[in-house]
């Protein structure tokens, strides 16, 4: 059962902005307050908005359970994989091997207050993205499961 046209249009209008804000929180996790978990929760809220406004039957075709499940598993695998690469290099698990290295996300940071550079902090942005993807998928799949159960209850 979908909501009125006003709600649906509002949800469609707001969804890109919620998405951009969530991705901003995820990508700037090492510079500003926030991080992967918070940004992922924001993006999942946007997905929840769309799923509630358009019913599960209609929104479930765009935001599929399979995609969200894949996203969650890939996020967790990327997180553990990034942490495990350090073992392959002969360092400790979760060692920040990219910081100050000059590779991707490898610029050094001066001590003290500074405006900050996006291309810093080593593996922290990668792990932020991984956790963001995972939380996004995880919270959305929980909502999809609950709403699909509601639909089955109504029919029977």
């Amino acid at each position, binding site marked *: 059962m979908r909501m009125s046209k006003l709600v649906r249009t509002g949800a469609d209008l707001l969804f890109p902005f919620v998405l951009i804000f969530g991705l901003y929180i995820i990508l700037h*996790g*090492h*510079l*500003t*307050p926030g*991080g*992967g*978990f918070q940004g992922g929760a924001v993006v999942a809220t946007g997905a929840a908005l769309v799923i509630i406004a358009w019913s599960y039957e209609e929104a479930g075709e765009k935001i*599929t*359970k*399979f995609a969200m499940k894949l996203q*969650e598993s890939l*996020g*967790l695998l990327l*997180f*553990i994989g990034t*942490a495990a690469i350090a073992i392959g290099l002969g360092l400790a*698990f*979760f060692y*920040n091997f990219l*910081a*100050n290295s000059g590779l991707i996300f*490898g*610029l*050094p*940071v001066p*001590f*003290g207050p*500074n405006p*900050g550079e996006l291309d*810093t*902090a*080593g*593996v*922290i942005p990668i*792990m*932020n993205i991984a*956790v963001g993807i*995972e*939380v996004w998928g*995880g*919270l959305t*799949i*929980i909502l999809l*499961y*609950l709403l*699909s*159960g509601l639909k*089955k*209850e109504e029919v029977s």
Partner: protein
Amino acid sequence: MRKVLIILIFGILTAGLLTIPVMLEFGSPKMSDMDNYFIVNGQEQTAANNICTAIVFDYRGFDTLGESTVLFTAVVGVGLMFRRLFRGEEHENE
């Protein structure tokens, strides 16, 4: 009887909760060594301006791994719980 029991348990819990701030002074025992280490060395070692994120994702990475595992377990639990509803039906990609 039941009301008395509830009030008793509530009183004991409240007393236990209040004992801690009365007996311990605020901010003691001091853990300033670790705090100072993060503040002095965090920016240089992790190259991240946000010290909170540096601690969560770098120094205490196992915490975040556990947090992710908790979320994954929650999703698996919800999936298992709702699987009963779909018994005997064909569902693609599930």
